């Protein structure tokens, strides 16, 4: 009886500090931004002005750039999920093979992931500008003459390439873990049964890797929807505002344009979109598993 009481007390008191911090840092601001989304507030004046649903109306009638940033984010998300997962899976399959440089290569692919996004952004900005200038002078290849960060479509490609490059290491690690968990005897059995390389991959390895694949898909989905820092460091939303993601657009409206209410409304709408999207994706993968 006494032990049970202690256990009860423990289960109430131990989570309390965590709950307190999560509440102060996440839930209270979340509720407050719900309130601000119904107001017109510049972030400076003492009292926000209540304006009802006007912010939401502005979002959906094109009064704000929200829809454009949403489209950009979706395009980025699709490409990011596709390329990261395919590349990470291919590299992981190569890197689980036993060869001399395997461990070194694993390390090399992981390094970009532990670097800060901002630093990665600045490094690539240097490569795209000064680096490509030098390469152009030495090789005279046309692709180095292109303005990779100064043309809207190319800037999108650059952002995607750098985003994929940076996070590849993380997904490789997840896939390697998944691959190494596949029982060796199943693979050997398939070899004995005469399954060639591609058939083995398609019918044996991939199905057994399904849990890793759904984890990676899910993580790449949420990470790419949140994309922010890489764009801020690489293009700052430019050129001509062509690379604004939703998060960067919210930041711009709330903190640069002094429309805190509009920014809050945008983040609420985005929250609901992300909520629906992740639920759908989770259902899909669950049913496939």
């Amino acid at each position, binding site marked *: 009886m006494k032990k049970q009481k202690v256990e009860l007390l423990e289960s109430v008191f131990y989570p309390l*500090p965590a709950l307190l911090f999560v509440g102060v840092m996440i839930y209270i601001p979340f509720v407050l931004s719900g309130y601000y989304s119904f107001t017109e507030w*510049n*972030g*400076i*004046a*003492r009292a926000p002005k209540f304006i009802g649903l006007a912010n939401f109306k502005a979002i959906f009638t094109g*009064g704000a750039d929200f829809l454009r940033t949403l489209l950009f984010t979706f395009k980025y998300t699709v490409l990011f999920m596709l390329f990261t997962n395919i590349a990470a899976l291919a590299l992981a399959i190569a890197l689980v093979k036993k060869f001399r440089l395997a461990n070194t290569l694993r390390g090399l692919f992981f390094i970009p992931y532990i670097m800060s996004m901002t630093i990665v952004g600045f490094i690539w900005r240097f490569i*795209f*500008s*000064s680096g490509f200038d030098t390469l152009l002078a030495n090789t005279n290849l046309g692709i180095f*003459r292109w*303005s*990779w*960060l*100064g*043309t*809207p479509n190319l800037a999108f490609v650059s952002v995607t390439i750098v985003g994929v490059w940076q996070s590849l290491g993380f997904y490789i690690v997840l896939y390697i873990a998944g691959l190494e968990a596949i029982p060796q005897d199943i693979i050997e059995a398939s070899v004995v049964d005469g399954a060639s390389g591609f058939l083995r991959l398609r019918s044996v390895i991939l199905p057994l890797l399904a849990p890793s694949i759904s984890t990676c898909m899910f993580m790449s989905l949420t990470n790419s929807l949140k994309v922010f820092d890489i764009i801020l460091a690489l293009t700052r*939303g*430019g*050129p*001509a*505002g062509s690379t604004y993601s939703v998060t960067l657009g919210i930041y*711009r409206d709330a*903190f*640069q*344009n*002094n*429309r805190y209410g509009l920014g809050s409304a945008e983040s609420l709408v985005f929250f609901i979109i992300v909520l629906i999207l992740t639920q759908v994706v989770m259902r899909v993968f669950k049913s496939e598993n």
Partner: protein
Amino acid sequence: MKKCLLVLALGIALTGAVFAGGGKEGASGTELYVFISQPEYADSIRALITEYKKVVPDVTINYETTQADYPALLKTKLNSGDLPDIFTSTAGAEIDLYTEYSLNLADQPIAKAMIPAVADGFKSMDTGAGPYGFAIKGNFFGILYNKDIFAKAGIAEFPQTLDALEAACEKIAALGIKPFTSGFGEWWVWKHAAMNFFGTATNDPIALTKKFENGQAKVSDYPRLYNDFFRFVDLVKKYGDDKLLETTLDREVAAFGNGQAAMTVGQGAWIEEDVLKINPNLKIGFDGYPISNNPADCKVVTGADQAMRVSNKSKHQKELLDFVNWWYTSDYGKGWFANVAKVVPPISAGVVPNLEVPKQGAAHVAQEGSAPLSIIYSTDAFHQVFGELMQAYVGGSATKDQTCAAIERQWISIH
């Protein structure tokens, strides 16, 4: 047991870190909290503070600076009740935004020491009261040009009209040198270039800004904007950088410093020292923008676009005012601008630093007068969008009329 203690200690440390802050009251004397942008002057301001400590030993000044995200950080501080004693905003449009929090300096010695053109930018646009701030520096905005390249191209005098500018570009391009490096990748380059045209499109730039904000004005009603500004932009595009929208400040400074380009766009006094670091022997010329076919219109712009605001909520009002007045009126303070910070002094009694842009700029102003610093009447929020729209124009994704229509629309919605 040991583990318990460790957890307890960590817990206390964490909580302490979260709930710390406040506690600005030092044990000995008064503490003032200065939180301003423009970190490029951090060393000079620290020197100023050290000097002030010698004069008034029982006032301690805590100085903090950042450039990235300064406005967002300042707002966070305002809303959490941690208002700095001195903070920064831009001049002009942002003056009214923060009047709730800042002191009118009109009856202070600092206001009398300030150059009138600088003080005007710190007055309320609504009421004309103020100044509600003071400046770290005055500034000169104009075109920096490479005198050697101009001499080589056989151009005796810096072009004062748009026609002359076009002729000069042709001659320079014939040498295989880029006439312009533009920095068009930066949004603020656009406002610096546009203000030369905007400030002379009418006699009253404040009223014109208000008309655009209320939707009563069209770009095409003002030939100075619709024809001359776009002609200038087209010229810069034609004779400018290869990767036009990728050219940011660093690349512009490099191209000009290395002698790859003859003229800069959207810059002013602040890049001279960086240019000289690349090539100490560069012969820099400085002049206004050719904005029309009347040579008399070609003037440099002077003034200050950043305002240091003095908090009206400070508990140490007297000490605070003593400090800022000392900054502008003491002998050390008066010499600080030119000798320590090496900037154009914002005070009437200042010494001009030994650099080309301030020297030539001051000479131009003395001879021809200056054009108004008209950018400050719109917010930077608008200017960022304006920069993006102009980038779309030079990038070829929007026509001139589409660009003008978008500018009119955004001016109404963001200000």
